């Protein structure tokens, strides 16, 4: 039962490189928190500071009601799953699992009992007498998870545990880990998780909440739905969602209502968006429209963007339209049954956005200036 609190955490590496810039994050008891972000954004650094594998150069980490800054990893009540599994190569699976308990001098019957229980949960009992090099990647991964599980830690830390697996296995391990988390929670065991990944599918499907990071800063912390629907800045908007949100540069033209000139084409918005927008005439903005929120404009609709179709990808239930908009690239996703090749005239197509799903960001700060008040 433990909550993890991070306060103004900073990391300056030995070469004076500042990797983490004073981040604060609360992970509630039993919560599955995902740290996500592009490569090099200091996800691992943050996780390793929580684990105690990296010294903390500023701020504090609190697990339960203890400040753990100066505790060695073994006393922090954490366990960690590494990207490369990091199984002890010279020990059988059984001993890999039991190593932590043996160090704690737990009685033998208890160790055996725990090993059996964990092996059962992860379906690795037939592998107990093998060496790590005799395991497949997926099996090794399960053993690594088992090694974390057996210690009954307060907080589980995962550093990209699935990135060495192929797509299919990754999908099944994803489900397995989520199930495991639910099971721990149901059994009343401590199940606070911090899970690092750079894969947004993993983040969206596994996380209770997601913390999006960039260059050692936290960009937004929210549950998957909020993150998708109410991105606080252009970075989060572009990072979450697939295919990526279209981010188009434009200028505000306030003529009574609101028009944004995109690549010379005016796009007007109704009062719903206009009223809450904090922008004035001539402001440089970025307009964010998810590909799914673009549809082929009706003949008589004047408020549309016109572009050249660069190519069309047929994905089965959806069609991806790649459109050139005077030098800007735009992707639209339309359901297959709504796609009619006749809508493309001479390679030209007219697209119209769903207004309530459009986001407008300040181009300078990247802040979302069009967020509706929370319901």
């Amino acid at each position, binding site marked *: 039962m433990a909550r993890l609190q991070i306060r103004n955490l900073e990391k300056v590496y030995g070469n004076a490189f500042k990797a983490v810039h004073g981040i604060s994050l609360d992970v509630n008891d039993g919560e599955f928190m995902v740290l996500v972000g592009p490569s090099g954004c200091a996800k691992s650094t943050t996780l390793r500071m929580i684990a105690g594998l990296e010294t903390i150069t500023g701020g504090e980490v609190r697990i339960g009601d203890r400040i753990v800054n100066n505790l*060695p*990893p073994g006393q922090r009540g954490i*366990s960690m799953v*590494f990207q490369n*599994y990091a*199984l*002890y*190569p010279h020990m059988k699976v059984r001993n890999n699992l039991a190593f932590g308990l043996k160090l*704690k001098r737990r009685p033998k019957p208890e160790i055996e009992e725990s090993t059996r229980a964990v092996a059962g949960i992860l379906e690795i009992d037939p592998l107990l007498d093998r*060496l790590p090099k005799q395991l497949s990647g997926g099996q090794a991964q399960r053993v690594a998870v088992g090694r974390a599980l057996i210690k009954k830690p307060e907080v589980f830390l995962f550093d990209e545990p699935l990135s060495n697996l192929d797509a299919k296995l990754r999908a099944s391990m994803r489900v397995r880990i989520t199930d495991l988390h639910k099971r721990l929670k149901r059994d009343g065991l401590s199940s606070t998780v911090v899970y690092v990944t750079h894969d947004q599918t993993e983040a969206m499907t596994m996380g209770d909440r997601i913390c999006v990071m960039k260059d050692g800063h936290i960009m937004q912390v929210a549950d998957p739905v909020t993150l998708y629907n109410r991105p606080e800045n252009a970075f989060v908007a572009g990072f979450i969602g697939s295919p990526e949100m279209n981010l188009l540069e434009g200028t505000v033209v306030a003529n009574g209502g609101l028009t944004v000139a995109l690549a010379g084409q005016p796009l007007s918005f109704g009062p719903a968006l206009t009223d809450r927008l904090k922008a004035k005439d001539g402001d440089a903005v970025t307009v964010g429209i998810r590909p799914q929120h673009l549809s082929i404009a009706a003949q008589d609709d004047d408020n549309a963007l016109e572009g050249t179709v660069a190519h069309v990808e047929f994905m089965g239930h959806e069609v991806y339209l790649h459109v050139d908009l005077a030098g800007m690239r735009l992707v639209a996703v339309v359901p297959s049954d709504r796609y009619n090749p006749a809508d493309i005239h001479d390679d030209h197509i007219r697209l119209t956005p769903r207004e309530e799903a459009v986001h407008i960001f300040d181009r300078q700060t990247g802040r979302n200036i069009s967020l509706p008040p929370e319901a």
Partner: protein
Amino acid sequence: MTQEIAVPAAAELETARAHIESRRMHVISSAVRYFLLAGVGFIMLYPLIWLIGASFKTNSEIFTNPGFIPQEPTIDGYIQGWKTSTPYTFATFFWNTFLIILPKTIGTAISCAAVAYGFARFEFPGKKILFATLIATLLLPNVVTRIPHYLLFRDLGWLDTFLPLWVPSAFAGDAFFVFMLIQFLRAIPRDMEEAARVDGANTLQTLIYIVVPMLAPALISVCLFQFMWTMNDFLGPLIYLSSVDKYPISLALKLSIDTTEAFQWNRILAMSVLALMPALVVFFLAQKYFIEGISTGGVKG
């Protein structure tokens, strides 16, 4: 017309001939290569073969029969050689060698592993300078330190004991081994050690339970090198040991040359063969690890 047909036929013949020619060249060149290799190999091995053969000859036959197969094989050399011309048998000298090698090898393995672990995995003040010093001692010629060493050990009252022969090595005095282990460790990812720390192991436990097993191939090579070099060390015992009852094998062999009026070559040769045996046996037993240890710098899987 006839010409046109003849041309391709001639060309075909030409390629076939070239083909046969190239195959023949290949066979000849392999034959030459293997012959050369076998020849040079034999020359290299010849002294050893001769030594073994001659150790079974009588003293007079050694000089009259240049071949290495003895005409009247005898183990007289072994029996007489073992007794030696001193009050001690060769068993004493083997035992002395053992008394030096055992603490030296074990001490080297433990101390070098610990020091290498420190250098390869930890940051501490002065690490750069200390490492540079280590490498410097690696490059320092042995002779330079002989006299200071001697004076030091004399002041400690260690002359004519085994201590000067193994104590320095047991405190990681052999920079070469430390260096070798550091290089090996650098190629091993740190993840396993970090996992052990998360599992609650302290530094020493991590070293013993995780690092040492992964270092095993390199440590075996270190032990083997130390074993062989100590077996072969002549100068060290010569400088520090003065009583015959403490002589190791390397000195004892020389002993039989000094003290007898007429050299009993067959005895010397027989004892040389015996002196070779431990090294040969150990090498063949540990060959697999030995080669793994010096050729690869990492763990598989």
